[in-house]
């Protein structure tokens, strides 16, 4: 088992790699989902962005 005799440690090592693989597969399968949400109405985003810039400007 990759040099580990403790199955729990072996499992920890494997699930770490599998979780990264899972994230890659999830991202690949959903890469085109959630693109357009409000049919080109960006008023809310623009308002948010304006406020964000104001906030950033107050930082050093």
């Amino acid at each position, binding site marked *: 088992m*990759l*040099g*580990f*005799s*403790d199955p*729990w*440690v072996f499992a*920890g*090592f494997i*699930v*770490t*790699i599998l*979780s*990264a693989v*899972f*994230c*890659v597969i*999830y*991202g*690949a399968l*959903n*890469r*085109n*989902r*959630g*693109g*357009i*949400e*409000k049919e080109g109405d*960006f008023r*809310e*985003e*623009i*308002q*948010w*962005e*304006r*406020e*964000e*810039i*104001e*906030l*950033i*400007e*107050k*930082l*050093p």
Partner: protein
Amino acid sequence: MFYLITFTLIYLGITIYFSYLGYRRTVTVSDYLLAGRQVHPLTMGLSYGATYISTSAIIGFGGVSALYGFSMSWLSFLNIMIGVWVAFVVFGKRTRKMGKALDAHTFPELLGRRYESRFIQGFSGLMILVFMPVYTAAVLIGISRFIEVYLNIPFSTAYLAFLLITACFVIWGGLKGVLYTSAFQGVIMVVSMMAIGVTAYWMLGGISAAHRSLEALTPFVPEALKQAGHRGFTSMPEAFSSVWWYVITTMIMGVGIGVIGQPQLNVRFMTLKSDRELNRSIPFTAIFILFTTGVAYAVGALTNVYFHNTYTEMPVQAVQGNLDKIIPLYIDRFYPPWFVALFLVSLMSAAMSAGSSQFHALGTSLSRDIFEQALLKGRSVAETTIVTRIGIVFSIFATLIIGLILPESIVAVATAFFFGLCGATFIPVYLFGLYWRRGSKAAAKASILSGFFTSLIWMLLFHEHESAAFGVCGKLFNVKCLAGHPWNMIDPQIIALPISFIVFVVVSLLTRPVREETVKKAFVHI
């Protein structure tokens, strides 16, 4: 020294350029209309990863892995599954939508507006302002320990010098281009960590051979640790022993779960334009975490083989018990000088990317959450800029003092402390705020206060690691801590988080929910 100066100058030059680029890209709203703020998934992934993973993970948790071995691989699993997938998919998507709908710009503001409470925003901001410097100090201690070993100078000098560099970076425009600089810093981190991972396994004859060599060192585990439940560097500690409780509840779950409540990370989701960007950045972030924390914890454990084979002593003995010096000493002794200099630059990247995001969160907590919302009742005034600057200078000063008074082997402990505290305080209100329309303002207040104070009380009176260090329990009751085994080893978050969850649900069912129109507004895109 030649390598260090060359690499540092190149690094600083590129960082300043990216900082300028980021600054230019954030100055006009029209940039946004022209899609100038479109964030590439790779940029988002690297930037999020570099903010999440700091010197604390590499130096602090790498050192802890040298002591507890591969049981820490469960932390890298949680770093990816909870810190990336759950954070992005379960929390990130709704955070982005709700953040935009409520026009929230900080994490405390999201909670405050969701529950219509200035108190929640102000209290959360205050908690961040008071306790985040502990984590910032841990990040800076991480790199300072490396500088101490590499340049052979006193720790306090290294710490002061690096804090000064970070302060200059923050004060002269570093915060405005955080996204781009941290993405660049992320590239350096992942490349150097991959190099360390590959060489560490390669020099020991491959993955299985390296693990077998480590397993052969089981008899050399310090006797005190063996008696406390340590069963070797390639085994989990004995179930329910002192070491088991400490490794599982503090080291693995403290950071592994607490990441969800991290304000400087949650705020990143709000800057994205769509779920698509979020979906696309998940693979990059996950791979980044695998190659940084996964490698750091594995190499941390393998340092035992290197030190034992070369010096016939264990790394923990070589550093006189200071775990924070194990990774620096390993890199310094087993790698060529040019690589050591390059690694130091990558640590600078890790410290600066996490540090600048922390100072960003500290600055906005003070200016927006505490000053404008809690104290001025929502008014925006010109003096905010001055208050923010004073606040950031104050937090740099607080970081300085905390860093100099904290004891040795503290980087991972201080990180777990802050992550655990944020987890217990914020996770229930955050989760229910995104998913449960019935949650009430009173419940949110009660949950935050119960999570926060239960954590603090548990730390000061029951959890042996902190209660012995702070000494409050000793002064009040003349004992190190009030609880016996196993309670004295169970992390505060494990006790406080269920309490704050239960408090939220019970109080919500007993009190008036948040106004219908606010809930509708919050959930308008969901």
